[in-house]
């Protein structure tokens, strides 16, 4: 088992810089999820830790040892790929044992590990089958089983569940959490699915365009995002963003006018508020709209569509050029362009300046 340390890690492909100096400390046994939109560099960063991509600058350490120039096989890592990367011509048993057999491990030891790995992943009945005779979920189990075989200090997962259907994904997610508990090994997991990130991670690393935007526990990111990108990326349905303008600042607070809501004004405590007249953005999560009169400021919107999920309903509304998603109590009422008045609360809304940085 081992912790990982990234120091000013840079990746360049030719003249293009993909990762712009990532710093990260992962504790021994921690489950860290890299999350971000496609092309943000999360897989590249994972592959750099694995040794499948060279490190252009900075250092990667695993278990206190700098591994920049160490071969992938000698880093003590095992990786599970999005496409499973099983050897198609080998049986499950051969897939599990291939690496160890090729590197001259003792046969009895290999057999013992195959058994243990198959038991852990519940694939003992599949050992004689070939990958194409397996379902997606079974293949993914075999891929994870193969990773376990090496008894690594560090597991790397590159979007391992994205090829599975929704139901199986939930099931495998639970199994991965169980596996992490059982093995207690450090795991780094890449996904673009923020639900996976929220449910699996001890800590989430949010990446955007090659930069680490924020690192934190799932609910910390949810409740206290550092910027607009993180606020928008974490949480489903997404946070609503409403255009605003600072109309007054006094006593450590800013009065924000919501420009698309007929001058509705919200008083937000802000130590370092932008100057009067600055454009700002107010962020409100769908569940943080309250009944009219029960908050600090009311807005009236026209409900276009309502989605009823049974436990809650989501009302989709347009206000000016803003799309709003508002969570309401469960109902069966259709939205027919009805007007709906809801309240915002200062302590349940976030203030961002025009660059997207959080104003606290």
């Amino acid at each position, binding site marked *: 088992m081992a912790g990982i340390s990234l120091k000013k890690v840079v990746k360049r492909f030719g003249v293009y810089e993909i990762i712009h100096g990532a710093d990260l400390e992962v504790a021994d046994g921690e489950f860290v999820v890299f999350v971000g939109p496609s092309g943000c560099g999360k897989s590249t960063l994972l592959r750099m830790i694995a040794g499948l991509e060279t490190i252009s600058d900075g250092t990667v350490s695993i278990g206190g040892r700098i591994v920049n120039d160490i071969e992938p*096989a000698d880093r003590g890592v095992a990786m599970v*790929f999005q496409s499973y990367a*099983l*050897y198609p*011509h080998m049986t499950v048993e051969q897939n599990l044992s291939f690496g*160890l057999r*090729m590197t001259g491990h003792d046969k009895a030891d290999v057999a013992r590990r195959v058994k243990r790995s198959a038991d852990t992943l519940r694939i003992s009945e599949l050992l004689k089958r070939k990958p194409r005779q397996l379902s997606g979920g079974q293949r993914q189990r075999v891929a994870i089983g193969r990773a376990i075989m090496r008894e690594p200090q560090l597991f790397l997962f590159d979007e391992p569940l994205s090829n599975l259907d929704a139901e199986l994904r939930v099931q495998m997610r639970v199994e991965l959490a169980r596996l992490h508990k059982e093995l207690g090994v450090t795991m780094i997991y890449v996904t673009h699915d923020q639900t996976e990130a929220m449910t699996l991670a001890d800590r989430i690393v949010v990446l955007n365009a090659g930069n680490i935007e924020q690192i934190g526990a799932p609910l910390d990111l949810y409740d206290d995002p550092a910027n607009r990108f993180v606020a928008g990326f974490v949480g489903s349905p997404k946070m609503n963003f409403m255009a605003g303008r600072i109309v007054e600042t006094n006593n450590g607070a800013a009065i924000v006018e919501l420009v698309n809501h007929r001058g509705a004004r919200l008083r937000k405590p802000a130590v370092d508020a932008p100057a009067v007249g600055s454009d700002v953005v107010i962020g409100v999560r769908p569940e943080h709209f309250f009944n009219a009169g029960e908050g600090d400021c009311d807005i009236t919107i026209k409900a276009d569509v309502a989605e009823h999920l049974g436990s809650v309903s989501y009302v989709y509304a347009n206000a000016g050029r803003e799309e709003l998603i508002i969570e309401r109590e469960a109902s069966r009422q259709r939205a027919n362009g009805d007007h709906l008045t809801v309240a915002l609360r200062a302590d349940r809304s976030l203030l961002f300046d025009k660059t997207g940085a959080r104003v606290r």
Partner: protein
Amino acid sequence: MRLRTQTAYAFLTPYLLVFLAFWIWPIANSFWLSFLNTRSANWTFNPRVTWGRLLVDPAFANALWNTLIILVIQVPIMIALATVLATLLNSSMLKARGLFRFAFFAPVVVGEVAYAAVFRLMFNHEFGIINKMLAVASVPAIPWLSSPNAAMAVIIIAVTWRWAGYNAIIILAGLQSIPEDVYEAATLDGVSKTRQFFFITLPLLRPVIVLCVVISVIGTMQLFSEPFLITNRGGPGQATETLGLFLYRQAFGAFNFGYASAIAYTIAALAIVISLINLWLGRERE
């Protein structure tokens, strides 16, 4: 018959007529011919002088032997070479891949007569470049085109030169269909590049290699141009006479169309049998 179907057949008719006249009819007719004695004034039914003769004709046995020798030596060497070429072409370290790919494929495009003339010159006993190079290495000159074994070697070298690149391109397509992450998984498992080649690449290439072997077997069974043009009609003597050449000699030299038809059917049958054996050996085992 429904109108739509009728229309479809109407459009197909011109092609089907040509297909019938120039494919089906010759195939059927030559089968019938293979039972006739075509050397008498009136062609009479006499399979003894066609199919019967195949069993006892030493010239046929010689051509069959030569063809099988070329098959057994040339096909494995060429496929092995093609696999190596394809692997090199697939290497990420290779610059100007397109140029190499074209260069390896070019021999197929070159006219047979032109390439045969060049090979005859290269392997010329007195002033050919091959013997000149051997002389530099102090190897005595080899009578390439007048010694039976050497002439056979020239045929094998020529056919290999001509078709190795073609097979390499097919194998390259197979290589490129193997996903990169399988190799990455093996790399993380600590499996060396050499072992990756033998335990991952080769097994995954098996269907493509079997295809190449089958195509090559069919080609070699019909081998004609090289012995006709390079070793001057299967020379020296009949040392490089192949089944294709023997068929040609019987049909258009001796005008013995019945016997030639029987040879043609034998060639086709052998090609099918050997290809089936290859497919069976190369099948996916459960």
